[in-house]
C-alpha cells in the first residue's frame, strides 16, 4: 500500500528525487561525526526523512526509495519461489499418493465379511525314494504301516467325535 502510494507520488516530485544524494546534507540533522565520512559512502543511504518532511505541499511522507525496496522485493521473490516450489513438490507428492493409492473400485465394492479362508488341502510334498527291486518290499511294508496308523488315527478321531457331548450346547437350561 505504501509502495503504491510512493509509486504514484514519485512522478509528482521530480525535484525531490535528484536531491536525495548526499550532495545536499542537512547540516542541522547531521551528527558531528558525519562530515568525517566521505560523501561517496553516503550515496546508497536513503533520503533523510527531514528532507522529505520539510517539502512544502506534501502531506504524505515520502516512500522509501527504490534502493531500499530492492532487498525487500528480492527476499519476497525468494520467499514466493520457495513457496511455489514447496507447492509444486506437495502437489507432486499428492498426485503420486493419489495415483498409487487409487482404491476407488475397492471402496465402491460391497463390504464383505472377513471369513477365514480355508486353505484348500494342498497335496503334501511326498519324498518318495525311487522304488527299486531292492527296496520295493520295504517300501510297501512301510506304506502299509503308514496306512494302518492313519486308519487307527481316523477311528480314534471318529470315536472322539462320537463322544462329544453336544447337549452342552442346548439353550433350554438357560
Amino acid at each position: 500500500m505504501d509502495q503504491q502510494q510512493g509509486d504514484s507520488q514519485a512522478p509528482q516530485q521530480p525535484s525531490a528525487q535528484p536531491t536525495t544524494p548526499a550532495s545536499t546534507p542537512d547540516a542541522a540533522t547531521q551528527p558531528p561525526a558525519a562530515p568525517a565520512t566521505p560523501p561517496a559512502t553516503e550515496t546508497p543511504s536513503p533520503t533523510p526523512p527531514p528532507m522529505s518532511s520539510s517539502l512544502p505541499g506534501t502531506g504524505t511522507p515520502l516512500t522509501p526509495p527504490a534502493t531500499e525496496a530492492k532487498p525487500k522485493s528480492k527476499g519476497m521473490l525468494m520467499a514466493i519461489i520457495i513457496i511455489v516450489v514447496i507447492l509444486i513438490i506437495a502437489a507432486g507428492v499428492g498426485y503420486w499418493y493419489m495415483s498409487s493409492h487409487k482404491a476407488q473400485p475397492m471402496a465402491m465394492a460391497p463390504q464383505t465379511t472377513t471369513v477365514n479362508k480355508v486353505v484348500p488341502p494342498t497335496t503334501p510334498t511326498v519324498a518318495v525314494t525311487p522304488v527299486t527291486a531292492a527296496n520295493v518290499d520295504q517300501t510297501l511294508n512301510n506304506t502299509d504301516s503308514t496306512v494302518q496308523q492313519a486308519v487307527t488315527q481316523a477311528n480314534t478321531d471318529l470315536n472322539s467325535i462320537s463322544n462329544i457331548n453336544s447337549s452342552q450346547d442346548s439353550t433350554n437350561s438357560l
Partner: protein
Amino acid sequence: MKKIIYSITATLSFLGIILTQSALPAFAVDTAGGQKLINETSRIQNQATHAAEKQTNELQGIISRANSLITNRITTLNTLSTRIQNDNRLSTSEKSSLSSDIQTDISGLTALKTKIDADTDVTTARADEKQIITSYYVYAIFEPKMRLLITLNNLQTVSSNIQALVPQLQNLINTLKSQGGDVTQLQTVLTDVSTQLQTINTTLTSDITTVEGVSTTSSSGAETTFSKVREDISQIVRTDFAKIRTDFSQMRPLFKELITKKPSGTPSQAAPSQTVPSTTVASPSAAQ
C-alpha cells in the same frame, strides 16, 4: 318475619353441620390411617429391596454360569489346538487355517466373558449368556467340524502318499516286464490301488468342501452333514484303504517272486545271493 329468618338460619346451620360431618372423614388424618400408610410404604420398600437383592443374586448366578460355560469351551478349544499342532500329517497351511479358526473363537469367547462380567441387568446378561452357545456351538458344531476336517485332511495326506508311490511301482513293473517277467497279476493289483485311490480322493475332496461349508452359528443341517461325512470316513477306512492294504499284501510276494526268479537268469537287486536262474517261468495262467 323474625321467625322465618330464624328458621331459615337454623335450617342452613343444620345443613352446614351435616355436610361438614359427612365431608370430614374424607380429609381426616387420624393416627390409625397414617400408621397404615407408613406400614404400606415400608412394605413396598421391603418388597423393592428384596426384588433388587433377588435380581442381583440372579445376575451373579448368570455371570457365574456364563463364566463356567466359557471356561469349558476355551479349554476344549485349546485341547483341539494342541491336537492340531501335534498332528504330523497336517500340512503347515492346514494347521494354520484350522488354528486360526480356533483362535477366532477363543478371542470371541474371551471378549464375551468381559462383556458378561460387566453386565448390570439380568436381561442383557441372559441374552449374552445365550450367545456363548448360539454364536459358537462349540460342542454341537465347531469341535466335530474341526475333528472331521483333521481326519479328512489326514486321510487325504495318506492317499497322496500312496498316489505318489503308484508311478514308482508302475515303473518297476514296467522294468520287470521288459526283463521278461509276467507282471499281469501285479498290474491288476496296482490298477486296483489306483481305482481305490481315485474313489478315496473324490470322496475326501467332496467331504472337505461340505464340512468347510458348515456354519458354526447355525445348528440346522450340521448334524446330517456330519453323519454323512462320518459314514464316508468309515467307508474309506474300512473298505477302500483296507482294499489297498490287501493289494499291498498281494504285491509284496509277487514282486519278490519276479525279482528273485528273473527269466533272464540275472541276479536280482533284492536278493543278490539268489543267483538261481529262473528256469520255471510262471505261465500267464498260473500267474493269474
